[in-house]
């Protein structure tokens, strides 16, 4: 709070005090966010301790923790991690590569955009998890159908965002570049590409969330290993503590990936106000 007062008193170093104010803000954010989680935990624990719900419906936090511990003490979990991790990483990497490349091309070449826009709108509108059974028929029950589903689910946010980033380039900057005799390639490299970086990263952030849905749904359609398969099995056997443990693993993976994208966004956004 002291930082806010510092700001009001009009210290000569505006940058410094703005930074301090921002730091104060982020501390506040962390404190309030943590407090809410803590309250939720307490309520959850109370509900289980008081026996309002039986452990088979709602396991206690301690139960979930011990389930996690026993999961990590066996070696099966690593096979699950490896399977889900492969699906996620291959699918996401493919989605990023194809989504960025195709998005740049579609955004830059207007005619290509006209050509493929109807197809993209169609695929974007279809609930892509519904393509899962079809992919299993086409590609079998192994890794490739799962990677394909993750890819299909997460490629569109990247592609659509990237192309709209390229399309929204500042016409005034283009005129300046033309004035210096810049070629189209140079305009693409120096204006369209850097200008669309924030859009690309925004698309990646959406894709990360979507890709986890892809992993889970793909494993529901039949899998030997994988965190999603583990959750599915545990659910059928009413081992809700393992279901919860699996959910936590998914959540951790999602938060980790989002944090990476956020970090990238901050790195590239140094020039933003």
């Amino acid at each position: 709070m002291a930082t806010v007062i510092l700001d009001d008193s009009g210290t000569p170093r505006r940058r410094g005090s703005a930074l301090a104010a921002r730091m104060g803000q982020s501390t506040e954010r962390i404190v309030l966010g943590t407090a809410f989680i803590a309250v939720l935990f307490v309520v959850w624990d109370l509900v289980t301790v008081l026996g309002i719900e039986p452990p088979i419906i709602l396991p206690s936090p301690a139960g979930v923790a011990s389930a996690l511990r026993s999961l990590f003490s066996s070696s099966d979990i690593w096979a699950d991690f490896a399977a889900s991790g492969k699906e996620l990483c291959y699918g996401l990497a493919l989605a990023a590569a194809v989504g960025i490349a195709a998005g740049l091309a579609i955004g830059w070449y207007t005619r290509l955009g006209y050509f493929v826009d109807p197809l993209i709108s169609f695929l974007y509108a279809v609930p892509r998890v519904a393509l899962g059974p079809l992919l299993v028929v086409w590609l079998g029950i192994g890794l490739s159908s799962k990677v394909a589903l993750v890819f299909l689910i997460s490629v569109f946010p990247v592609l659509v965002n990237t192309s709209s980033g390229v399309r929204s380039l500042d016409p005034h900057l283009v005129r300046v570049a033309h004035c210096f005799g810049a070629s189209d390639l140079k305009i693409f490299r120096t204006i369209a590409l850097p200008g669309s970086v924030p859009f690309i990263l925004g698309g990646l952030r959406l894709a990360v969330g979507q890709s986890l849905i892809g992993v889970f749904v793909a494993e529901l359609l039949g899998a030997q290993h994988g965190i999603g398969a583990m959750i599915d099995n545990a659910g059928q056997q009413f081992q809700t503590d393992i279901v919860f443990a699996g959910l936590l693993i998914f959540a951790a993976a999602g938060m980790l990936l989002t944090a990476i994208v956020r970090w990238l966004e901050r790195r590239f956004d140094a020039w933003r106000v």
Partner: protein
Amino acid sequence: MAIAQASMLPEEVALAGRVSRTSGEASDYLHVRKASIAYAGRGAEIILAIDRIDLSVDRGEFVCLLGPSGCGKTTLLNAVAGFLAISSGALTFNGKPIDRPGPDRAMVFQQPGLLPWRNVLHNVTYGLEMSGRMRRREAAARAAALLELVGLADFAHSFPHQLSGGMQQRVNLARALAVEPELLLLDEPFASVDAQAREALQIELLAICNRAEVTALFVTHDVSEAVFLADRICVFSKRPGRIVREVRVRLPKPRDEVRLTPQFLTYVQEVAGVLGSAAPAASKTERSKEKRHGDGYPR
């Protein structure tokens, strides 16, 4: 201050085209003869932006195009820059017809148009990179010297959003000067800068142009700005734009203190008189229409 900075101009920044400013016979430098520009308005309507304009600019001359907004002066500037083709007449630069933009003619727009993801130094090297005439390190050295010239040496590593509007416009000017243009085209470059910064920028621009012997074509609707900067003022009528009068401004340079002299005020009165009789205040509907089409780009 401006003069001091200008005199620090290092030799390697000395700009191209420093030929004696007296060219005797009819100029073959920038030559506009009976140039008209028309473009399609809404529907079948054809709008004549400028009408049979004759203009010759000598090497080293500072010419202001002055007129009410929407009179076609920016259209003419865009044609000289090569953004816009003329509909009839002739438009030549160094004896060759102008058909496309080129780094021999650098444009300074009203909006700074800096790349937000590049720092100031790399914004100044941008034009050099685009015309691909210079190595990276040479370009950076030239940019640093030019930033010194416009008084922004300490801000080389700042980003555009950290600068004021006036400072951004100086970066814009430095970027244009970096490509060593023979002809500097300025489209109301100081219009969106506050009054105090504008006067400082005008003084600096004049000092830079004198020092580097740049030829300048400067569009403005501000009479005192035109008198302060110009060797010659071409006063435009309202659209279709024609040059109704040329006024030669014989005020000694440097002109840092000239605004306080009676001669300056006499020129301002004279030019304002010409402008007033050439372009009586447009009616409201006409003015809004001019605003729509006024920037001289076909749409």
